C-alpha cells in the first residue's frame, strides 16, 4: 500500500509502496517509474518487507531538484534506509534503477545484503549501443520494451488516453519523470559505474529478459566481468520489462536467489 515518508527534515517527501513483512527488500524502479499497479511488488511482499519508493521527481515524490547525479541518488537511498531504520537490505533495481542500485551498493558496501540487477543500465559498449529511448515515440517504444508488444500487458503500458486533458497530464508526468532520468542517462547512460562496480561486495543476481532490445543481454556479461560474485539468469519470452511480461518467472528467480 501507498505511504509517504518525509525525510531529511522534510526536504524529500517520498511516495513509497510497501508490502509484507520479513527481511527488507528495497526496490529501485527504472526510468519510467512505478505505475501504481505493480503486482510483482505485492507478490514479493509474501516473503519480504518490500519498500518501493518513487525517486524524487517521480509521482508524488518531491525534492528532485536536490538530486543532480548518481551520487546524489545513491545517497538519497542511503538516507531513506537510515530514516526507516534499515541498516541493510536486499536491493533489487530495474533498468535505470539497476544502475542506481549498483551505485548505492558500491558507495557503501554494507548497504546491500544481496543485489538483484534486472536489465540494468550503467555501462556503454561501443559495439552494442543502447538505443536512444528518449527519442522514441510511444508507438515505437513497445518493440524495445517488450518481447511481445502486442500482448495485453504491453498494450496497457503503451495506451494513450482519449481525453485531451488526461493526455496533457500524462505527457506532463512522463516528461517530469524522464527529465529526472536524463540526469543519469542523457545523452549516454554511463556515469562512471565502471570505476566503482568492483566495490560491490553483495552476492549479485543479473536477471535479464532474453529479448531485451533496450539494454541487450550482452550487458549482463559486462556486469559479470566487473562485479565479484555474480550469477546470471535469462528469462524466456521477456524483453526489457520482465517483471510485467513474465511476472511468475521473475518473482521465482528473485525469491530463489534471495532465499538461497
Amino acid at each position, binding site marked *: 500500500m501507498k505511504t509517504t515518508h518525509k525525510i531529511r527534515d522534510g526536504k524529500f517527501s517520498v511516495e513509497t509502496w510497501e508490502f509484507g513483512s520479513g527481511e527488507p527488500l528495497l526496490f529501485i524502479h527504472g526510468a519510467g517509474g512505478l505505475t501504481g499497479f505493480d503486482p510483482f511488488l505485492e507478490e514479493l511482499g509474501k516473503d519480504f518487507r518490500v519498500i518501493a519508493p518513487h525517486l524524487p521527481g517521480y509521482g508524488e515524490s518531491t525534492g528532485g531538484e536536490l538530486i543532480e547525479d548518481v551520487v546524489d541518488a545513491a545517497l538519497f537511498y542511503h538516507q531513506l534506509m537510515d530514516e526507516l531504520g534499515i541498516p541493510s537490505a536486499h536491493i533489487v533495481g530495474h533498468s535505470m534503477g539497476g544502475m542506481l542500485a549498483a551505485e548505492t551498493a558500491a558507495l557503501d558496501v554494507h548497504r546491500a545484503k544481496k543485489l538483484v540487477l534486472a536489465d540494468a543500465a550503467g555501462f556503454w559498449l561501443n559495439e552494442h549501443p543502447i538505443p536512444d529511448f528518449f*527519442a522514441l515515440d510511444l508507438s515505437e517504444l513497445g518493440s524495445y520494451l517488450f518481447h511481445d508488444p502486442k500482448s495485453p500487458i504491453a498494450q496497457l503500458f503503451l495506451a494513450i488516453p482519449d481525453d485531451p486533458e488526461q493526455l496533457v497530464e500524462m505527457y*506532463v508526468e*512522463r516528461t517530469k*519523470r524522464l527529465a*529526472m*532520468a*536524463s*540526469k543519469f542517462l*542523457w545523452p*549516454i547512460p554511463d556515469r562512471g559505474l565502471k570505476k566503482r562496480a568492483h566495490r560491490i561486495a553483495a552476492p549479485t543476481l543479473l536477471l535479464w529478459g532474453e529479448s531485451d532490445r533496450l539494454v541487450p543481454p550482452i550487458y549482463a556479461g559486462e556486469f559479470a566481468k566487473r562485479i565479484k560474485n555474480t550469477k546470471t539468469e535469462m528469462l524466456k519470452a521477456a524483453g526489457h520489462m520482465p517483471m510485467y511480461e513474465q511476472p511468475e518467472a521473475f518473482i521465482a528467480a528473485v525469491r530463489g536467489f534471495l532465499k538461497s
Partner: protein
Amino acid sequence: MKFTWFHLMPYRYLPDGFKDKYRSVWVDIPRNLYDPKIGHRLYNDYLDQLELADRLGFDGLGVNEHHQNGYGLMPSPNIMAAAISRRTRNAALVVLGNSIALYNPPIRVAEEFAMLDVISGGRLVAGFPVGTSMDVNFCYGEVPATIREKYYEAHDLILRAWNEPDVFAFNGKFTKLRYVNLWPKPLQQPRPPIWIPGGGSVETWDFCADHGYQYSFLSYFGYKAGKKVADGYWNVMAKKGKEMNPYSLGFAQVIAVANTDKEAEELYAPHMDYFYNRCLHVYNGFADAPGYRTPSTIRAGIVAQVGKEAALRREGLTWNDFLEQGYIIAGSPKTVRERLTEAMKSLNCGHLMMLQQIGSMPPELVRMGMELFAREVMPHMRGLWPNFEDKWSPNPMPEPERAMPAPIDLRRIETNGKTVHAASPAAHESRSAK
C-alpha cells in the same frame, strides 16, 4: 518599423522524396547529402545576399545558430557575422544568437560578441537563445533537466563580464573561473542590445520582461499562428506594468514579393513546398527532449514548431492555404504591404525578421524579392509606430569615425610583386551555386 533581413542558410539541394526516404532534416540527416563544393557556393551566395541587404537599406542582417541541420548551415553564426562585418556599413549585425549554455566556458560568447561589436563599430545585436532541443540536447548532448539553469548562469556570467570594471572571480555551478577579465570589451556601452529569440517557452517572456530585453519569436507558422505567442508575451508585459512598446517584440515572417500576386505564386510556390516539406521534416522524437519544455509551457498548449503535430498541421497545404493561414505573406508589393501592415499591427510588432530566402530559392529570385521589398514595401511601412522609441537597436560610432576597409580588386591578386589575374570578369559573375 524596423526590418532585419534574416538568413537561415539552407542547403538548397535536398533530394526529391527526402521526406519519405529520410526520417529527419535535423540531428541525424545523412552526411552524404552534403556536398562541400556546393556548400562553398551557397555560403558565398548567402553572404552576398546579406551584404546586398545592407546596401538596400535594411536595418539589420540576421544570422542564427543551428547544428546538424539541413536548412540551417550556421553552427557558428559569429563566423558569418564576422564575414559580413567588413563589407557592410550601416545595418545592425543581428546575431540571434549564441546558445550560451553550450559554450565552455560561456565567457567565449562575451569575448566573441565583444570582438564583433568592436570590429563593426558598434553594430552588434547580441542574441541569447536557450537553443532548440534538437540543437542543445540531441546534437550537443546537454542534459534537458539542467539546460535552463545552465543558460541562466551563463547569462549572468556574460553580463557581469561586460559590466564589471575590474577582474572578478566567478563561482558558478557549471562554470568556475578565477580570473574573468574581458579583452576586448564591447564598443557599445554599457552593452550591446540584447534580443532573446524564443520558440514559445512561457519562461522566456518573464525573462525578457524582467531584464528589459527584446523578445523575438522565431516562428515559421506565420503571423496568425504567432498571435497566441505574441499575446502571451504582451500579457506578461502588461501584468508587470511594462511599456507595450512594439520595438520590444521581434517576429519572423516568410515574405515572398513579386510584381503581381499571380507571378508570386508561379515563382515562389515550389520553394515554399521545399521549405515546409523538406526543410521542416524533423523526426518527432527529436522535437522535444523530456525536460526541455517546462510543465507550464506544455500546459499552455504551445505546439512545438517541428515534429508530428506541426507536420500534421502542414500536411497537404497548398499555396492558397499557406497564404490564408498566414504561414507566408506573398504577392504584389501592394498585397504584401497591406498584409504585412495588418500582421504587424495585430502582433504589435516593431522589429520584423524577414525571411526572403528560404528553402531552394535561387539567388536571382531572392534578389528580385529583396529589391521589390526595399523599393516598394519598406518605405511605406517605416512610419508604422510614430509614438514609440526603438530602444533595442544598436548605437554605433558615427559613420565618419569608423574605419574603412582598404579597397582591393579580388580579380587581380598581387603575390611577390607579380600581379595574377584570378579569373575573367565574365566567369566571376556566373559563380553562384549550380
